[in-house]
């Protein structure tokens, strides 16, 4: 395995995880839930 070829994706993956953790801690998962449990009238063409 060439380490250099995988340095960028591993770093980006770490950044992604940090972003998800920060988002979760600030309640963004609950925001997703709040939106997703209601019918999106725009999405289905009624809004």
């Amino acid at each position, binding site marked *: 395995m060439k380490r250099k070829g995988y340095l960028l994706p591993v770093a980006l993956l770490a950044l*992604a995880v940090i*972003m998800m953790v920060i988002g979760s801690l600030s309640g*963004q998962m609950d925001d*997703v839930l709040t939106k997703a449990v209601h019918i999106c009238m725009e999405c289905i063409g009624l809004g």
Partner: protein
Amino acid sequence: MGKSIRKHARRIVQVLWGFLSNGYVKGFLPGAPMIYQGPLKRFCVPGMNCYSCPGALGACPIGALQAALNERHRRFPSYILGYLLAIGVLVGRFICGWLCLFGLVQELLYKIPVPKLRIPEKVDKPLRYLKYAVLAVLVIGLPLFYRTDAGTGLPFFCQFLCPVGTLEGGVPLVLLNSVLRPALGWLFRWKILLLVLVILSSIVIYRPFCKYLCPLGAFYSLFQRISLIRIQVDPVKCTGCGTCGKACGMQVDPHKVPNSTECIRCGECIQKCPAHALSFTGLGKELHLRPREDSVHEKTSA
């Protein structure tokens, strides 16, 4: 039987995932809540899947991103963007090939035995960039900057373009719930027209939505060349016969550009390569996700 299962592994995974991610059977029964309202909807599925589908158990990442950008007091959507970044960096467009229900629908439509249409390259190539415009303008730009009088935004892609929401959400909800039918108007007719166009196109063109319109595929494609799972060509084994390119429904030439932004990593090229020169790799190590068809040499020696 084992070989047959491995040969059809991708189709099996697609179908199983379709049932798993849309397994809320109660949503299809009369008298029950129209859609699933439980805690699993905190999590996004990795492919296109409208969360207004009666059976949907997870949230749609594109829908969730637009909802976050639409908020009156919006914050940087780090959870959703982090999730999309993680998926992209891990597997790129592998999700498109293995875990997208709408991709499966298009593939099944393409199996209808009618003459197929091959879009000329001078039309096909520029048209492939349309999905990036959809991502930049309809998914990100307009939801971010356009505001109604009430101070909120609109989910432009979901509202005016997405055929997935119409097929998975709009049509079943309207069929199952008569209370929604008085609300049908020009928007629903427009969305049905778009859905019909995509369905008809899918019969004669392989995965047209994925090729030309899907913003999620556009996003994941940005990470194709750096994702941890990739396709690798063995230059020693490759004879340049072009079998891989002929097997590719997305019109990619895998032996020339193995991690093209258009590759959905279905593995058909790996299966078909007579020299066994192509493989999936994870962190540089070969992964055996698709069994290879016997090479001509192996067939004749048997």
